[in-house]
């Protein structure tokens, strides 16, 4: 039977993450480590120990900002940024959803806007995000300021052949 480690390594499709010798360079350079419950190198250790529930249910994987500092500096070329992508996707596929609900709500609102118009419509995405996250009132003053300044375009041009974009979403659907 495949272990959690096998699954993760297979999906990263790079060097095996057990090459990590815990020098903690990733964690030292990680701009998000200060809010993560498990530091990046600890996540690697937890995967090796088979702690699937804890890793996929952690906020760490959703707070990773994909800045790629870790992979840039890793002396062993362990692709931690890609590992975080893989873990997020495994969390979604397992049906567990995301511990950081607002982060996932943002991604869903963003992608749903692209699916509908081929391009992101920023104001519509924000409305959708607010409905999904329940966070209705933050940024209201800022939004108004942006709107008054003409920074928000409700009628930004869409992709004409939006069918081809929707087809991409259909054919890459996972869960």
């Amino acid at each position, binding site marked *: 039977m495949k272990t959690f480690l096998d699954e993760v390594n297979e999906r990263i499709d790079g060097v095996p993450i057990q090459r990590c010798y815990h020098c903690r360079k990733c964690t030292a350079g990680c701009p998000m480590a*200060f809010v993560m419950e498990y530091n990046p190198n600890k996540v690697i250790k937890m995967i090796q120990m088979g702690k699937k529930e804890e890793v996929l249910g952690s906020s760490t994987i959703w707070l990773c*900002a994909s800045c790629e500092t870790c992979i840039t500096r890793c002396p062993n070329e362990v692709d931690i940024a890609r590992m975080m992508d893989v873990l997020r996707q495994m969390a979604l596929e397992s049906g567990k959803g995301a511990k950081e609900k607002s982060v996932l709500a943002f991604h869903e609102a963003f992608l749903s806007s692209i699916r509908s118009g081929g391009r992101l419509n*920023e104001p519509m995405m924000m409305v959708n995000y607010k409905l999904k996250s329940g966070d209705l009132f933050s940024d209201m003053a800022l939004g108004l300021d942006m709107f008054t300044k003409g920074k928000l375009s409700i009628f930004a041009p869409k992709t004409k052949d939006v069918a081809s974009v929707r087809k991409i979403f259909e054919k890459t659907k996972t869960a």
Partner: protein
Amino acid sequence: MKVSLYPGCSAHGTAKEYSQSIEAVSHALGIETHEIDDWSCCGATSAHSTNYKLSVALPARNLMIAQRKGLDVMIPCAACFNRFKTAQHHIEKDKALRAEMESIIGGKLTDGIAIRNPIDIIANDIGLDALEKKVVKKLDGLKPVSYYGCLLLRPPEVCRFDDYENPVLLDKILAACGADVKKWAFKTDCCGGSLSISRTDIVGKMVNKLASMAKEAGADCIVTACPLCMANLDMRADAALKMPVFYFTELLALAMGLPGPEKWFKLHITDPMPLVRSLKLM
């Protein structure tokens, strides 16, 4: 030179001033831009965070359209630039993935289309000497720090552009315009990116650190080439720490005496006009 242009979704909204200043500066420097026909979104962080194949297929559709013209593709937005480079990287090294992508987007993908950002094109193709010759109003007294953020440079084997820990091209471009560019150690630190909306609290802390470090370096403004960095620095720092943030092309246009800066600066949340006026740059 001629390039294909991928504006990216923010070009029509929050980064209007970036796309308009890119157009003005390109024109003035002799870069002829051809917008990619009927382009669609690159998927940004949201696609690669949740669905690997979607994150490759969305840029691939645009690559397929761009390759018909065969020109280098200029991508001003750092996030779009990174997604295109990454998709191309995966497609070129993984044959099975390439075949799958071709079936999804309904067309062949050829290699060899260069994905480039305007810092690279202006510094390396146009050249700093040629740029300096176009400067009619030196940015005397302006003390910027250059801020690259993450997505222009990392991972280095994908982005292949400038030094990935201490990049210098943007500094050189600003110096060519007469600015007194300040050194600092935070050029490639992260602004928090797409967590801006979902975890504003965290992003606030990150940009506060950047703004205070810029101040400590003696800077009076921060210069970026990324709509996400711009939005976060311009909107999310505490009032006490906020300083003007510019797209580098806005400053180029200002130095080259092109029309537009006054209109673009009105779109900023942190008003740069007091600084610009105090230095008599406008």
